């Protein structure tokens, strides 16, 4: 297991109290596994991604643990996390285009970054150029400023940079949401290629686009209101979803070529609950067509068949 998360709780501190953005999340990732992480805005998917590498000042680690290759990450302790960042756990941020320092040439920026983590630039330079070539970039980009590159090129530079030290875990947070469809495909396929070549051992691919996740992820995990709803191999999740939320989510996605006249699709009615004072029991209860009295008790996240976990009383 390259990643094991157990009962992780991370709350946001606000003046009105704690927002329980991540409320008891447990799952694990096998070596070489790409896990897609989907959910609506506010479901906690980005919070989970961030918790694995860096809590910002408003976030507080309330409980639970994260282990990467059997070493526990001190996620609540910012300085103690430093030796793990970049080496063991790395991140491709949501807006990779603004992650590059505009006042530095890319090569120099990478040299400074490696230096700050105690790595010699000259030692990794050949590997850096090899990987840039792999994503279709000339070594010449190292002498350019970020402004001279297109959005897709910058995204690929950040990808190569994030994975340069072969981290055990890579978190890709909405990496393609700002890209055109053709660039989105190229970037996503490059991520899979990086995994295949062993540059990263496992990956959490955060996205709101279930169709994109279906293309590249081995397993998919659905989050709802700070909790896990379902995790399964992607093909199983798409064809035989067990959780009513996953089903409704899948039904709300129009497919290419399907028109409203042929088949009208429906969204998930209602809004997710506020997490300042979350409801008791199943958090999806208010929007769920199957809900009854049993749902007043919180359903556990259990496996219904090997590798298929669901948190729902109604999932047989």
């Amino acid at each position, binding site marked *: 297991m390259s990643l094991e998360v157990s009962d992780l709780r991370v709350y946001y501190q606000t003046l009105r109290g704690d927002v329980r953005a991540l409320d008891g999340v447990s799952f694990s990732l096998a070596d070489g596994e790409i896990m897609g992480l989907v959910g609506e805005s506010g479901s906690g998917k980005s919070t989970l991604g961030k918790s694995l590498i860096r809590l910002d000042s408003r976030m507080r680690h309330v409980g639970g643990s994260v282990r990467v290759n059997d070493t526990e990450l001190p996620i609540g302790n910012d300085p103690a996390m430093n030796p793990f960042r970049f080496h063991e756990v790395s991140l491709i941020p949501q807006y990779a285009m603004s992650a590059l320092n505009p006042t530095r040439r890319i090569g120099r920026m990478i040299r400074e970054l490696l230096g700050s983590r105690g790595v010699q630039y000259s030692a990794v330079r050949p590997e850096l150029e090899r990987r840039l070539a792999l994503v279709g970039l000339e070594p010449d980009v190292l002498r350019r400023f970020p402004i001279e590159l297109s959005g897709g090129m910058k995204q690929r530079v950040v990808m190569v940079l994030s994975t340069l030290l072969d981290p055990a875990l890579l978190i890709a947070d909405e990496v393609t949401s700002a890209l055109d*469809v053709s660039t989105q*495909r190229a970037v996503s396929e490059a991520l899979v290629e990086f995994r295949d070549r062993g540059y990263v051992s496992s990956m959490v691919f955060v996205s709101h686009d*279930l*169709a994109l996740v279906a293309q590249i992820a081995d397993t998919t995990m659905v989050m709802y209101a700070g909790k896990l709803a379902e995790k399964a191999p992607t093909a199983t999740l798409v064809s035989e979803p067990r959780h009513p939320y996953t089903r409704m989510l899948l039904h709300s*996605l129009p*497919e*290419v070529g399907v028109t409203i006249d042929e088949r*009208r*699709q429906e*969204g998930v009615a209602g809004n997710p609950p506020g997490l300042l004072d979350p409801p008791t029991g199943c958090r999806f209860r208010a929007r769920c067509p199957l809900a009854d009295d049993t749902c007043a008790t919180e359903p556990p996240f259990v496996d219904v068949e090997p590798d298929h976990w669901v948190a729902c009383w109604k999932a047989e």
Partner: protein
Amino acid sequence: MLKLDRVHKVYRVGTFGTDRLTAVSDVGFEVHPGRVVSLIGESGSGKSTIGRMVLRLASVTSGSITFAGNDVSQLRRHRHRKDYYRHVQGVFQDPFSSFNPIFKVDRVFEMLRSEYFPGTTDPEWRRRMGESIRTVTLDPGEVLGKFPHQLSGGQLQRLLIARALMLDLRLLVADEIISMLDASTRIDVLNLLGDLRARGLGVLFVTHDLALGTYVSDTSVILRSGRIVEMGPTGHVFAKPQHPYTRSLLASVPQLHRSWAEVDAELSAEPDGPCPVHTAADTEVLPGPLVRIDDDHFVGCSGDGTGTRC
């Protein structure tokens, strides 16, 4: 109803405005009442510029945009322009920036009232506002009196459509209105567009997402670098894409039940046809007019538009 004829848009760029950037060239199509036309393209394809020109937020360099026979760029008098916006309204990508965060959402309706319906009495106005909000499948009691941050993006977007519907709306320019919404609420806004279409509203739907672009549209217009590469009834364009660019776009769209590899295999089984505009004998391969290949299905030159051989 809305007709674009050989529309061009050239921007001056560079420090002194000395360089020219052609954002839209030779674009022509029509939007009829009760029809949805999707403008589909990647960044820089000119799709938003077209929407902005229709809304008179950008000037037309050459060509004409007419609405019900009147040239949109020739509306000189305030009264005429105001009249135009009575029939044509836009909704944009980011619902949060369309509302002023320090005022309640009701303000967008109040401003409409003071501008267009100054004589309406309070009860009458409230009745019409409630009616319009219910049309967009919202509950007036639930959304009115709230601040923008208290509502979801989908609710705000539908409120903006409700606001537009209070006018004598005939054409809605919807510029990427769902790209910032959650997957689960996108479909609600699309269904709403479908319902409004059934009531006779014309919609110009600007999007970069092919799957969402096809769901409600009657006609699809595929744009690349400011030019139309393919245009036709949505079913035809997506079932039998003719232009290599349309095909490559389709091959890149992630689909739930088909992998990219499967789509690639299907497309390569049916190779690109010859360029419909030029033959091998042509010496000039400048992008020419679109060629009709089927009833209303038009395709442009297969070249990349730079004058290299197609």
